[in-house]
């Protein structure tokens, strides 16, 4: 199933930052992270703000240096720059040379892959189309919006068809259409057999895309495995939105649990009672507007993590 050499292999990776102006203290931002990502996987890297996601990615890119631990990418140590030929990286909140146009920027980055001029032209045009910037190709980047910069950032990460792509919060700053497009790009990469490693704190993105996710909290790995297993996605309750018939009072068993929301009612019932409730609603001819499962939010999930004992991963290495 997995190839011999993992796409990413992280062993005991640790990073301390010195903080404080007068008296420097060390603060651990990443604490002995170990994980392994196989080739061809889409791997989600989850965690609340300040969990250490960006820190991990910067360590892997050689932008900062680990306090302890090692990591290999595509079988080569992270300080081996030649490996960079085969990877792409979208930094968090990307920013680029604002005096260049998108086309010039991508051409510049493509030069580092030694493509001849003609191939660069073709590749740049293709990738601009891919990220939806074709119409803004000749606009200077200083005139780009946040979402457009994000798209340019994705473009530079994939222009050289890397085997492995690192994306730090690829959806941030994008409108719904943009998010959808990025999801498509990530899924495309998977069908081409590439590996994608992306960080996010949006659970639904991870759930929709990832083969596996890792959850990071306060620099420590708290769980790793398939999304369904790791972030317990079991439904806690069902939410029903309904509209009663006009001028007709609700039966008391419904009125007890429902809360009025602008002429409508909203109620949460355990999954087991769903059909009974629907029957009740039917009997009083209420219009059911929607029925949806209530899942734990990421906050709920992490709140749960914080209450749990530290150093106790939910599930270690579910393969």
């Amino acid at each position: 199933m997995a190839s011999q050499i993992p796409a990413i292999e992280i062993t005991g990776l640790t990073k301390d930052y010195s903080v404080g102006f007068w008296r420097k203290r060390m603060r651990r931002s990443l604490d002995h992270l170990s994980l392994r990502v196989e080739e061809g996987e889409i791997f989600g890297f989850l965690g609340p703000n300040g969990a250490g996601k960006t820190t991990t990615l910067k360590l892997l890119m050689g932008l900062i240096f680990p306090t302890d631990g090692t990591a290999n990418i595509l079988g080569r140590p992270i300080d081996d720059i030649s490996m960079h030929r085969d990877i792409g990286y979208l930094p968090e909140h990307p920013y680029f040379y604002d005096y260049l146009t998108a086309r010039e920027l991508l051409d510049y980055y493509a030069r580092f892959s030694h493509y001849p001029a003609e191939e660069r032209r073709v590749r740049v045009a293709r990738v601009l189309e891919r990220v939806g910037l074709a119409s803004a190709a000749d606009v200077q980047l200083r005139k780009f919006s946040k979402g457009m910069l994000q798209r340019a950032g994705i473009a530079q990460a994939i222009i050289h068809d890397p085997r492995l792509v690192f994306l730090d919060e690829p959806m941030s700053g994008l409108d719904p259409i943009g998010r959808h497009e990025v999801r498509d790009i990530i899924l495309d990469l998977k069908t081409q057999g590439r590996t994608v490693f992306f960080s996010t704190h949006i659970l639904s993105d991870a759930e929709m895309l990832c083969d596996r996710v890792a959850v990071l909290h306060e620099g420590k790995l708290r769980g790793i495995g398939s999304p369904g297993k790791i972030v317990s996605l079991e439904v806690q309750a069902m939410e029903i939105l309904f509209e009663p018939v006009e001028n007709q009072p609700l039966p008391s068993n419904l009125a007890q649990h429902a809360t009025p929301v602008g002429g409508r009612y909203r109620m949460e019932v355990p999954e087991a009672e769903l059909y009974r409730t629907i029957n009740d609603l039917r009997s009083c001819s209420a219009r059911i507007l929607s029925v949806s499962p209530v899942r734990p939010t990421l906050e709920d999930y992490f709140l749960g993590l914080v209450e749990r004992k530290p150093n106790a991963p939910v599930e270690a290495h579910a393969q």
Partner: protein
Amino acid sequence: MSAMPGVVAINTFREAVRDRVLYNLVFFALLMIGAAIIVGQISIGIERLVIVNLGLTAISIFGLVMAIFIGVGLVYKEIEKRTLYSLLSKPIRRWEFLVGKYAGLILTLVINTAFMTAGLAVALFYVGRPFVRSDASILIAIYFILLALALVTAIALFFSCFSSPMLSTLFTLAIYVTGLFAADIRDFGALTHSSFIKTATSVLYYLVPNFHDFNSIAVAAHGESIPFALVWQNTLYALMYIALLLVASSAIFSRRNLK
């Protein structure tokens, strides 16, 4: 040697052009025109002297301002704006990036200086003087100015690898001024009766780059010849010092955590 620094250099040059750095040439042109007209009106015999003195001094000062103020931002700006993040994920080593940024600014300075040299030639032509063989001294003096600028740029780059532009500017200026007066400082030291100060000042003399030797403006203005030995000695001196600074910069920058 890889082609990576070249790619970075061209982009650095493009940045300078798009940031309208070369507009300084307009001021230089105005200065030369004004000087040529005024000198032509008032003095006979020293037109050449004045034009050459003024032109070379302006070339040196304009270049110095560019070298220092762009030089201290070369690396800092890329870190501060985080443009370096995506760049370093490409197959480029940090020293290659550094050398590329350096070469890009040198390229800018060379082109800028070339334009100013042309302007100086036009001004000299205007004050009605055919070119003669001793004008080679002017070109050599300009070459020396460029060597000094290359050295100043390397100093600015070195400091910008670990400190803010403000401090780097200060450090670079301090080293430049110390370098200009290195010989005088050593001679001051030699006058004292303290052997500690004597040693310290002569160590300083050999430690800081000796910018005094790169100044041939007056010699060129008087139409005297510059000995050939000085040409190769200055070239070698500048190259070695620049190599030293780039090696040190690379060593520091390669181990630096980007914020």
